[in-house]
């Protein structure tokens, strides 16, 4: 393996900004940012510095295409301005120590040199060496300037070997955390309850401090295999505020507080470190320090007024294409995505999709016991995601909200989380529990058939553990419309597939289980009767 690096000290070419920017947002809390930049390369070895890249970039993910020259090294440099970094970068520099006499109000200004910033700050004053903030006097430091390396934009640089000179259009791409998107569905079921109007919204969010102007934005629907950062991967650390887009409907203040808390922590750690002094008695350690004496942290925090975190709802339709084994949705024209902004666009609108609205019950035990009264039948929407149903579009995972007509208006009937649904897939979503549909379950264990018993006694064969169950379920429909009920009955682990001995409704099968379907007219009741027989597989 030949690892090549080029000696330092050559020409540097700066690229101050991107000509064009493309943002591909993934559901997992990150984005792939692709910047198109123009650079003019000399023939000799050169360092290209891309300025103003996103500060949250993952440097190991950076890819540069179109240089037409061998790449030797890349480098990501960014130092955030914090009270700690300001002090650390000022070691050896002359600053002003300002002391205020609490009693007389006299302010003393002294030129001092910072000689160490470790666990505490040591200063060289005209009198000798002193520890900063250990005397109990109100004191602060005044800096003349922000050290240039802290003032700079985050930069990504690449060192190139010698090669052909000339202008190049380069694509610089990298992953950056702090972005997410999700899809939400609104289904309006029509009064016949056999059709729905389906609208899909894509909600994307930029939780970084970087604003993007006129960016090409796309989102990828797919479950990517990602590794945690401990394993060297790209997965963002878990952050509930990024994973829960529902939060955007909460007062922005909450999110703002969370973000503040996120940023405040490491900075305060640093500050606490710097306030370490000589050993004092424990009682003295908690010596009150007037808040004004602290290095004021306020300028480095992003005090974004709540109004700036508004939700932008656009009427834009997005265009879908396949990306490998995922779906990619493209906002067809360049759009702005500002720092801490949430944006929504419609990606799907399908009227009159054929659906079935049914009540379902699943019993999974052959023991003669009554199911819990709380087990009201599930209310379920079922359809097939194909053209003949009036749909046939990939449906990325998201929250699915169902609205139904009620009287003059519409009510919110419930919601469900839907997983990715490709074209051709049957879809079942349980969005509510039944109301006004009462069920009485009755199950009794029958004695094994006399004749059968006799037969088995005569044979030498081992008599298996056999169970026979009679079920009578009464459904009372108090609604003003008919309902369709599906009842499934499974044997449970260790039992053979239950055999339907007899039933008053024709037995079918679903997922390998016995299934009965019956319709109960409005304000009437019906009973379902059946007998199941199963044997223990291994006894």
């Amino acid at each position, binding site marked *: *393996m*030949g*690892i*090549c690096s080029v*000696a330092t*000290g050559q020409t540097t070419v700066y690229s101050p900004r991107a000509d064009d920017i493309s943002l*591909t947002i*993934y559901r997992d809390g990150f984005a*792939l940012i*692709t910047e198109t930049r123009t650079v003019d390369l000399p023939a000799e070895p050169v360092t290209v510095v891309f300025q103003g890249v996103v500060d949250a970039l993952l440097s*190991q993910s950076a*890819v540069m295409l179109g240089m037409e020259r061998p790449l*030797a*090294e890349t*480098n990501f*440099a960014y130092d955030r301005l914090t009270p700690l970094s300001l002090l650390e970068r000022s*070691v050896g520099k002359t600053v002003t120590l300002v002391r205020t*006499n*609490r*009693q*007389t109000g*006299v302010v003393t200004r002294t030129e001092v040199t910072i*000689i*160490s910033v*470790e*666990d505490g700050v*040591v200063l060289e*004053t005209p009198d*000798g*060496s*002193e520890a900063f903030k250990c*005397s*109990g006097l109100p004191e602060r430091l005044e800096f003349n300037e922000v050290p240039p390396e802290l003032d700079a934009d985050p930069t990504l640089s690449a060192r190139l070997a010698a090669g052909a000179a000339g202008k190049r259009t380069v694509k610089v791409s990298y992953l950056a955390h702090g972005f997410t998107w999700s899809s939400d569905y609104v289904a309006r079921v029509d009064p016949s309850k056999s059709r729905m109007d389906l609208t899909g919204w894509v909600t994307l969010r930029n939780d970084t401090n970087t604003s993007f102007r006129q960016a090409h934005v796309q989102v990828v*629907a797919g*479950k*990517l*295999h990602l590794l945690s950062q401990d394993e*060297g991967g*790209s997965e963002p650390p878990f952050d509930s505020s990024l994973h829960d887009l529902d939060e955007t409907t909460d007062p922005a203040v909450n999110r703002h507080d969370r973000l503040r808390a996120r940023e405040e922590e490491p900075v305060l750690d640093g500050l606490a470190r710097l306030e370490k002094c*000589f*050993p*004092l*008695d424990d009682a*003295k350690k908690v010596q009150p320090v007037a808040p004004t004496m602290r290095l004021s942290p306020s300028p480095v925090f992003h005090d974004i007024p709540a109004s700036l975190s508004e939700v932008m709802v656009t009427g834009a339709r997005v265009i879908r*294409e396949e*990306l*490998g*084994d*995922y779906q*990619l949705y493209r906002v067809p024209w360049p759009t702005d995505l500002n720092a801490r902004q949430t944006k929504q666009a419609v990606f799907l609108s399908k009227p009159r999709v054929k659906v079935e609205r049914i009540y379902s019950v699943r019993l999974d035990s052959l023991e003669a016991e009554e199911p819990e009264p709380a087990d009201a039948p599930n209310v379920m929407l079922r359809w097939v995601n194909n053209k003949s149903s009036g749909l046939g579009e*990939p449906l990325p995972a998201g929250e699915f909200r169902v609205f139904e007509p009620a009287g003059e208006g519409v009510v919110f009937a419930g919601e469900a989380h839907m997983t990715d649904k*490709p*074209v*051709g*897939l049957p879809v079942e979503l349980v969005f509510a529990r039944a109301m006004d549909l009462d069920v009485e379950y009755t199950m009794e264990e029958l004695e094994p058939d006399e004749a059968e018993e006799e037969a088995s006694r005569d044979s030498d064969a081992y008599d298996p553990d056999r169970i026979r169950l009679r079920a009578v379920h009464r459904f009372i429909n108090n609604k003003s419309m008919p309902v369709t009920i599906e009842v499934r009955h499974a044997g449970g682990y260790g039992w*053979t597939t239950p055999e339907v001995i007899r039933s008053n409704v024709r037995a079918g099968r679903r*997922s*390998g289980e016995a299934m009965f379907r019956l319709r109960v007219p409005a304000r009437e009741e019906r009973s379902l009767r059946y007998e199941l027989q199963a044997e*223990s597989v*291994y006894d």
Partner: protein
Amino acid sequence: MGGRRGIYLIALALVAPVASGQTASSPQPTSTPPPVQVTTEDKDLYLTVYNRDLALIEHVRAGNLPAGRHRIEFKGVSARIVPQTVSFGASGLTLIEQNFDYDLLTPAKLMEKAVGQKVRIVRTNPGTGAETSESAEVLSTVGGVVLRIGDRIEVLRDDGNPARVIFDKVPENLRASPTLSVLADAARPVNSDIRLSYLSRGLSWTADYVAVFNEAAGDTSLQGWITLDNQSGTSFANARVQLVAGDINMVDSVEQWWLRFNSRRQTNARRTAGVERSAREQLGDYYVYPIDQRTTLANNQKKQISFLSADRVKASKAYEQSFYGFASSDEPVAAEVRVRFANSSAAGLGSELPSGVVRVYARDARDQPQFVGEDRIDHTSAGSELALKIGDAFDVTVQPTVVRTSRVDWGQGEYEMQYVVRNARSSPVTVTIRQLGMLRFNEVTAESIKGRRTDARSYAWDVPVPANGEATLSFTVVQRWW
């Protein structure tokens, strides 16, 4: 930090001994401190970086010393040095004492070093604001600072009132930059290199790969990058770097590891004498990757160095899904997507690949590469096959159904399984369905597609599925409990 960049040489900057005039003579009586030589510039610098948080660092510095006893201070060593592992070598120099008395200059250390010394205490009267200054001797700093002021003993700021402590000077061995000092005798004037080596924390490296997979062409490009991360607190200029791949996590302390490393180094040296071995093998179970040219690694910097660039490596895509046991699911399960390629010269690659994360990209309709997933590869020698799991297919799903469970005989159950594989893509796919938990006493008695036993506990079937269509795999397994 960048001050040393690009400069190679320079030697011991001779700092004139402060007090004594008798600089270079025979060893000094202990009462007179030896002259102090300060060296800051590396003539050469070798970094051997291990995967996780460890490096072997060797500084080569020009020695230019008159005969006599010297205290030599090495500035610019790693701040995360493990002092027990320091070793020092120079011809003509005899080591008397080796101290890493580097202490960070902090207020607490400053006070500690002032024990027995005079400091000045400036108090501010809380009522009037008037300042008074007194000389004090520091008696103790344990659990609080005890001072002797005149004939009184008191505790610093016991009353909670403001009191400034002014120190005359910063003690010699409290420094703002990491320094190692040794006490050595030179029998005659020394004019040769001094080598200083030690282990340090804070340095690590990882390998990262970028693969742009072209499904239509059946190939992938593969670029490899080494990321060197320097969190050691010190910058290293123009270093010769080599990387060692190997897991040293099994030992619980650096010191133990160092002992083992040394003994291994000795045994290996013996072996090399007998049998000719390449340099790469000398570290036994480790792989060593030298970086061709010198590199500068600033503190707090992550630097990436290209080490591999291959185009048109033959690659293909595969779908698979594994199921443990026999169960039905109303919810179809997405198939996993894998990108397979061979690390062989025939396939367009064939170099040793250090363990690392491969990020896979695919081009979208506008020919722009988009990220599609990542996976880790282990250290891969040439000739190995690789299969990267990149994600779940949106459009390819598998839905398992237990069609029937029945009893064959005592302790024997029969499971009739059905896997419906759906493909919403516009091209046909083949999905490998793996049934796990298929131990020796599970027997496939019927199958709609010929399957194969893949190992002692799994069975696999390759199910071809037409474009925009579905296919069903059915099989029956008899399971015995004995």
